[in-house]
């Protein structure tokens, strides 16, 4: 029987049969198993409006860490935060506040990385006009009471202005901001 004489319905039947069997094959094959890494790099616990306060020996607060959301990851023991805000308390003056968009807390809780733009500020009090400082990618070393960045940093103690590259700020007793290179200052009258 030559090809032309084979009825079209036979062809259609064959195509339909292959489609059905492909569909059944798809149906029966199990979904790919989640790899081990995917399973582990997942959040094992999380918190909304997360607050962590560190106290001094005399029972007064030393620092406070707040975040809109915090999620802890099993595999690297790191906690990731959304919109972290840190407060550093000092006697007699308003607290220093450090804000950033994202942040992480190391496993031992001692190292906090504030990613992207970081804004340090202290409210005015009495006749003092307050102070603002801007930097980027700031690492806070809680156990050693200092924070640092390698990026361009500006200090605005109104109406004066100082900037530099690289910053190391000691918050063990008050706040001492060290600018590490290329310092420019401007003092207004």
């Amino acid at each position, binding site marked *: 029987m030559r090809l032309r004489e084979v009825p079209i319905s036979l062809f259609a039947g064959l195509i339909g049969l292959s489609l059905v069997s492909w569909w059944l094959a798809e149906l029966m094959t199990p979904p790919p198993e989640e790899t081990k890494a995917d399973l582990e790099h997942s959040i094992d616990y999380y918190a909304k409006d997360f607050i962590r306060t560190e106290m001094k020996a005399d029972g007064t607060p030393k620092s406070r860490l707040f975040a809109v959301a915090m999620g802890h990851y099993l595999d690297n023991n790191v906690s990731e935060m959304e919109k972290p805000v840190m407060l550093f308390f*000092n006697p007699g*003056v308003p607290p*220093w506040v450090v804000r950033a968009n994202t942040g992480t807390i190391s496993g031992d809780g001692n190292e906090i990385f504030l990613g992207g733009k970081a804004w340090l500020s*202290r409210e005015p009090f*009495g*006749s*003092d*006009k307050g*102070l603002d400082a801007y930097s980027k990618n700031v690492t806070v070393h809680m156990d050693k009471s200092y924070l640092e960045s390698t990026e361009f940093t500006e*200090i605005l*103690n*109104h*109406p*004066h202005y*100082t900037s*530099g590259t690289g910053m190391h700020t000691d918050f063990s*007793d*008050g*706040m*001492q*901001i*060290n*600018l*590490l*290179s290329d*310092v*420019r*200052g*401007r*003092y*207004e*009258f």
Partner: protein
Amino acid sequence: LESDAKEPIYVDSDTATYDDQKGIAIYTGNVHSVQGSLVTDSDQMTVYLNQGKIDKIFGVGNPVHIVQTQEEGKGTIDATSLKAEYYPNEHRLILIDNAIVLQSGNIYKSDRIEYDTQNSVAVAGESTSSKKRVHTIIGPKSSDPAAQPAPAPAPATSPAKKR
């Protein structure tokens, strides 16, 4: 220049520390500061702030080098010392230890020279202590009538008023 006092002070340095609690800023390493025509070079400069205003600026150097343009046609004043205190609100600059001022061809040396940055008047020595002796070299009268020497510094009658 008289207008210097109203100008902002610009500072460049290698590093700086701002101590929020004490309200001081310390600039260290190749410190170069400019206020109008008043230019200062030192190794370290400390700015004392009080309620946002500058109380005092203290410079240390080996030496501290200060240059300022005097009024029209009077050239510049060139001063060096190991320490310098500057009270911007009073336009008062005090040069301490090995202070040397070169003004209109005259040279004044003493361990303490007080200089009025607004009126370009230098007061050398201190009447209460003989240690602060003054050594003055008056430059020869130049033939050029335009270059008139500035008046010799008034002898210090009373100790510089401390703020």
